[in-house]
């Protein structure tokens, strides 16, 4: 147990939030994508965060980084909200009744999530810097 552990914790959150911001960027970039890699319209992606426990009972867990504190993204799942259907029979991806299914991405929701994620990202950078000062102080002991 040392100051390093606090660094690892803050860095885990910084990484998790950065990944979330990448996912949001992907959602926004694909807001009009009627064709995804799996066929069909693009589905909004959502990261699932889980707490990484502080303590560990076995050395093996620690070696595999299953503990040590902080947070991690355990999965990136598809939002199952139904697609919005717009009547546009001229569109190449329109179905038999002339409806086009559009991605279930809402610009305003993504932007709110982005602002929130970046605030938490910055908060964890601040926490990291505070811990860094502690480590630097330790080096000042004569």
């Amino acid at each position, binding site marked *: 147990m*040392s100051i390093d552990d606090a660094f690892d914790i803050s860095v885990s959150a910084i990484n998790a939030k950065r990944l979330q911001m990448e996912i949001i960027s992907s959602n926004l970039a694909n807001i009009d994508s009627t064709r995804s890699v799996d066929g069909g319209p693009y589905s909004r992606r959502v990261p699932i965060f889980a*707490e990484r426990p502080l303590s560990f009972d076995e050395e093996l867990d620690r070696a595999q980084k299953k503990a040590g504190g902080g947070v991690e993204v355990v999965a990136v799942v598809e939002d199952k909200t139904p697609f919005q259907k717009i009547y546009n029979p001229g569109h190449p991806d329109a179905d038999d009744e002339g409806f086009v299914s559009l991605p279930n991405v809402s610009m305003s929701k993504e932007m709110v999530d982005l602002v929130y994620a970046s605030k938490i990202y910055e908060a964890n950078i601040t926490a990291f810097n505070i811990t860094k000062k*502690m480590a630097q102080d330790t080096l000042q002991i004569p």
Partner: protein
Amino acid sequence: MASGEVPRVNIFDNTFENLHQAMSIATKRQEILSHNIANIDTPGFEPLDFDEVLGKAVKRAQGGPVVLEEELAALTENSVRYSAYVKLISSKINVMRAVATQGRR
């Protein structure tokens, strides 16, 4: 203490021991506060506190979600307190060095 009496001070006391203990506690608390801040957005997360008596992390007694600003303020305060310990240990070492070298370098 009668006037003219010089207080007896033993420079080989347990100051180092106490300060080292205090620094360890502050380091552990830093870890726990960082953990709470990292999990601000994690659903179902239960914030932790450092219990000095038990010497380990415990679940926070009063409910309510983690307030980011409060946690960051606690982190800063913890860091400042740690800096104070560092200064105290440094003074102690300097005093001992002055004694050991009789004031000469």
